[in-house]
């Protein structure tokens, strides 16, 4: 308790021993649009109240009036640092509902894209943790390589950030040679840079001092708070959707799931770092498997689902059937079978789930996105209680909060 003897407060003012500080909604340190109202005692946080919803776009409502293929661009905007994983998760949900079997080559190509997305997400998160602890150069090192990943997306689907990549049943077009060349370049150059990045941080005394013991959470609390993904694994629980419920042929790959022990910022950093190495290994394996497809097999890039997969444009101009399908798909006139399905994929932040109810109409009756960010962000007041303001900011960036995923 501080002495108030010498302070004369104006008549009627409320005496308060803590300072209220608004962190956000638009603040460079929050890396996204959300607000924290902090009650500060000196530089220690007594209480944090999180406010979200600043970029809520009612995707679940919009999706109730859209045919399946038009929902893919909505999923782009959930976790926009790794849009392809969201897109693929949505395609997998539709395919499960429709009972579509995808060819192996499609699965492997999807895995390449999803793991690239995971790397691009983790590299942002880890380098931002670096920035928030005062090391800016690591960020610049890695940021160039996100550019290489985006060039691969661009070669495959034409866009970079909000990708809308793939279709129900596969990809919109086959991977070009240029795409594979860019992938090879990335696989060759990125490990060198990632190693250098890790050299900068992993045994760096200042970085360790800033992150070890900062924003920790126990495994039990993390599970109770619904943590998934790297944040849960950093707390020591080896739950990974790719292993528990393999989708898109993840069972064909050999990789390990890194786990931490304390669930603090340093462990989250290590887990994400190791996941990038594992993703690189998965991409290498998948690329090898893709190269094994020769001749006509190498031309397979989608499953045969004429009712949902757009026909080739030249067929639309010359064939009656293709023309009909083209219009039916574009106008959203295909009835979806009735059913109820929950599918999840391992997003960069955790279990990204899609709960889709169809009543047999042309659009989903109800669609719910299980956004990992939204669920684990609840723990933020608890894990920052009593910590310094600057530690709370590192904790926020190491939880990898993405405003798009918070708000949906």
């Amino acid at each position, binding site marked *: 308790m501080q002495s108030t003897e010498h302070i004369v407060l104006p008549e009627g003012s409320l005496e308060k021993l803590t300072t209220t500080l608004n962190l956000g909604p638009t603040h460079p340190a929050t890396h996204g649009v959300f607000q924290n109202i902090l009650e500060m005692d000196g530089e220690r946080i007594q209480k944090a109240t999180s406010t979200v919803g600043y970029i809520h776009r009612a995707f679940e*409502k919009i999706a109730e009036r*859209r045919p399946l293929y038009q929902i893919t661009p909505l999923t782009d905007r959930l976790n926009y640092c790794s849009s392809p994983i969201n897109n693929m998760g949505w395609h997998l949900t539709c395919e499960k509902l429709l009972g579509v079997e995808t060819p192996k080559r499609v699965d492997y190509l999807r895995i390449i894209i999803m793991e690239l997305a995971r790397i691009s997400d983790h590299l942002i998160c880890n380098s931002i943790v670096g920035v928030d602890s005062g090391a800016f150069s690591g960020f610049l090192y890695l940021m160039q390589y996100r550019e290489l990943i985006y060039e691969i997306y661009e070669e495959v689907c034409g866009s970079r950030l909000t990708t809308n990549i793939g279709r129900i049943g596969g990809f919109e077009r086959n991977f070009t040679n240029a795409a594979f060349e860019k992938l090879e370049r990335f696989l060759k150059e990125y490990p060198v840079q990632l190693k250098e990045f890790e050299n900068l941080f992993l045994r760096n005394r200042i970085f360790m001092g800033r992150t070890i013991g900062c924003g920790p959470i126990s495994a039990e609390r993390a*599970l109770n708070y619904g943590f998934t993904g790297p944040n849960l694994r950093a707390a020591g629980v080896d739950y990974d959707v790719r292993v*528990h419920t393999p989708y898109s042929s993840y069972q064909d790959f050999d990789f390990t799931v890194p786990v931490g022990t304390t669930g603090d910022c340093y462990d989250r950093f290590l887990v994400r770092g190791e996941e990038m190495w594992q993703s690189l290994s998965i991409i290498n394996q998948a690329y090898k498997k893709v190269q094994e497809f020769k001749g006509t097999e190498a031309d397979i890039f989608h499953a045969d689902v004429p009712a949902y997969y757009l026909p080739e444009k030249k067929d639309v101009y010359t064939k009656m059937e293709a023309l009909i399908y083209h219009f039916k798909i574009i106008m959203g006139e295909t009835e979806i079978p009735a059913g109820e399905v929950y599918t999840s994929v391992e997003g960069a932040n955790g279990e990204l789930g899609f*709960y889709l109810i169809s009543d047999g109409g042309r659009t989903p009756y109800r669609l719910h996105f299980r956004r990992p960010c939204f669920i684990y962000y*609840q723990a933020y007041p608890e894990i920052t209680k009593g910590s310094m303001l600057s530690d709370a900011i590192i904790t926020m960036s190491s939880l990898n909060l993405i405003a798009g995923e918070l708000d949906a």
Partner: protein
Amino acid sequence: MSLTNEIIKQRLVEKFGDQLTDWVEPYGMLTFTAPKDQNLKVLQFLFDDAELRFQFLTDLQAVHYPAKKGEELAVVYHLHNLVDNVRIRFKVFADITKPDVFSATALYQSANWMERETYDFFGVNFLGHPNLIRVLNVDEMDYFPMRKEFPMEEQTRVDKDDAMFGR
């Protein structure tokens, strides 16, 4: 991986008898309906039982069925047993004029915001929730936008009378 849907169903029927209804398995996930006032008992039993161990709340949300009179709002729980890697789903139905459902926040911290979101969009009143206020929409909003009485423009409508573009 020894925990199968049959065993789960058997254990639940032993405990709750015929209170649990509508057993289905869409796409392999065991789904059932529980009476509205039993939701916490079911959650607690699934959590505590040494064999079932459904201790992870994956998801919680609501669905609005305007045609089902007296049980318009369904609250859907997705639970996950991480040890045996089994998921189940169960629903409780509430009357839209009195949508009171017991809150799961005492059992799962993660239910806090999920229930706030469900309240925000569907108006389900979670009894016992520590802080049941809107989370994504503005505080001043006085309706529940995800209910079916607020339709979006019909994009896939069939009455296309515009000769040029069909809408």
